[in-house]
């Protein structure tokens, strides 16, 4: 299979709300290679979760894809009808959500949900056989006593166990692409590390391509090969994780990294970025970050900066960086 697992091209998504059209995702392109994990990092409202949902063709009903393509192993899923989408979901691409407790229907056991997935996605009708597959999937994600988990309702399990169960649900069908939408945000710090470890080892074991969505740069540093930094619906910088974290180029990335609270400098004041996210209903002729940027140039408010590679695999959309490079 020469097809790339996940390619997103020129994706633009608008939300139709009572207060106007919100341009949530603005001409975003990226790709995830086989076995690689790419992080989308950004504040709330930067459009990263919208991209995550669009990869499954599971956008809310008030969202419109204005332009662009989302290719999963070469198939543009934005053009598929409901039936074909259903067959791609689970089989080729799956998702883990932020809140594991809300992801499971409270009236059904973990085993019932997983058995249905095995039945409808893998076509295993035999109950015994299905249960065997499910129990294997549950132990694969490090859940002790899979038999008990199988018969448990969501409210009988802890957040960490539920998130493991959710990972089992997403991976039992062996998709090639996994979208992880802030999978550790709702968990305790100690659990976060465990879940991230689990995801890492499963990714290596199964050769998964992962689109990891987070606002937490620390998490991104642990899990991801590459990072794409999003601001107000656009990617402002992407590159290998260490490059982005250690020598960020875009003023927004720099500020984002400064904002990460560090326990060693507890005495110092927490940093933040002055101003707030721009109004996403408007179009901006220049750089969308310009109103909050300390290093504005005259052209920043006039001309939209393009994503340009400053070194192989590391691209930035900033006039100042490009000018410095020449």
């Amino acid at each position: 299979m020469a097809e790339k697992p996940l390619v997103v091209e020129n994706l633009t998504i608008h939300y139709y709300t009572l207060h106007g059209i919100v341009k949530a995702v603005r001409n975003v392109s990226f790709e995830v290679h086989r076995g690689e994990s790419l992080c989308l990092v950004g504040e709330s409202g930067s459009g990263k979760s919208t991209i995550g949902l669009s990869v499954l063709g599971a956008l809310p009903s008030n969202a419109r894809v204005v332009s662009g393509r989302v290719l999963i192993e070469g198939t543009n899923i934005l053009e598929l009808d409901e039936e074909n989408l259903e067959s791609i979901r689970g089989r080729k691409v799956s998702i883990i959500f932020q809140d594991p407790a809300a992801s499971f229907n409270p009236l059904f056991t973990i085993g019932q949900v997983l058995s249905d997935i095995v039945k409808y996605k893998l076509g295993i009708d035999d109950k015994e056989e299905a249960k065997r597959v499910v129990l294997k999937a549950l132990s694969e994600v490090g859940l002790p006593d899979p038999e008990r988990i199988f018969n448990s309702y969501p409210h009988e399990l802890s957040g960490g166990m539920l998130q493991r169960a959710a990972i089992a649900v997403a991976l039992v069908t062996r998709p090639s692409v996994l979208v992880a939408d802030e999978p550790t945000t709702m968990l305790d710090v100690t659990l976060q590390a465990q879940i991230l470890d689990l995801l890492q080892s499963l990714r290596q074991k199964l050769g998964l391509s992962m689109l990891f969505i987070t606002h937490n740069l620390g998490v991104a540093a642990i899990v991801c090969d590459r990072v794409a930094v999003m601001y107000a619906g656009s990617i402002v910088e992407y590159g290998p994780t260490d490059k982005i974290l250690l020598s960020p180029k875009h003023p927004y990335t720099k500020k984002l990294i400064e904002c990460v609270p560090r326990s060693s400098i507890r005495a110092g004041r927490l940093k933040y970025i002055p101003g707030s996210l721009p109004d996403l209903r408007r179009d901006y002729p220049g750089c969308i970050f310009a109103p909050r940027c300390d290093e504005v140039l005259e052209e920043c408010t006039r001309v939209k900066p393009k994503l340009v590679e400053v070194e192989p695999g590391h691209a930035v959309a900033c006039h100042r960086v490009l000018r410095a490079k020449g």
Partner: protein
Amino acid sequence: MPVSKEYIVKRLILLVLVVFGVLIITFVITRIIPAHPELLWAGSHPTKEQLEKARKQLRLDEPIYVQLYYYLVDFVKGNWGVSWRTKHPVLEDITTALPATLELVVVAFIIAIIMGIPLGALAALKRETWIDHIVRVVSVLGASVPVFWLALILQLVLSNWLGILPGAKRVDEYVVIETGFKPITGFILFDSLVQGNFAVFTNALKHIILPAFVLSMYPFGLSARMTRAVMSEVLNEQYTRSALAWGLPRRIVIYKYALKNALAPVIASLGLSFGYTIIGAFMVELVFVWPGLGLYAAMALLSYDYPAVIGCVIVVALIYSVINMVVDIIHSIIDPRVKL
């Protein structure tokens, strides 16, 4: 089993307390209304002596707590007094009237559930389409149309003008006599079916269609609107969106998963309206000459027939309590988070 024995016992004790409380309140209220039931008891044109005798017989000359004491003693023995209007024992009257009403209400609720829940679910799935609008209009109409009006119109058109369906009574006497039908429980549909008497069964079925349909309008509107509202909510829940994103087929997500979530609140509201309908059926019973409990209670109220009124109120309180218990138990079976 999510329901414990202790819970059932507790609920049964509570049920006795509720019925007892209802009994006392109803008894006191009937006695403090300024009315003269002895006039009814003594017949037309009574003499002073006859009236005095009637008051003595009915113990109306005693203080209210003495009357209550005698009533309670009799009540526990199974003697609910004699109806001042029909001169029959109240318990006997009620055991004849109750099956007629229960049969009518149960059929009405079956119609309501069969129409209401699927239509409500459909409306939620097709939100803001013409299907949704039609279901909403019909369900609001169903819940708000006056039953006596609808009963009269349907009786006039379908029975009197077109002659498609019978417009009065539970069953035609001639069929009962010809086939030698003997009711056991008083539920004619049930009895005739058990005895294999299909002539009576079809005859009774034809008779029950119109009144049951009219009576089903309110619970139909209620269940359709409730199902639509709860279902829309459930379809927006994260767990529904997750299930779809994981690739489960849409029909499974909706009809196996989401519908179960929507069921508990719908059943709860239907349970409450069931208790209400037992007595509220009297206008339909009046129009269709249906010898039911609602009609009996209404007549008892109009004629100051205190023992009958108290008897009816107690039966309804009993039915309410039992239904609430059943609804709670159903809820705990549907929802594993509810432990009784």
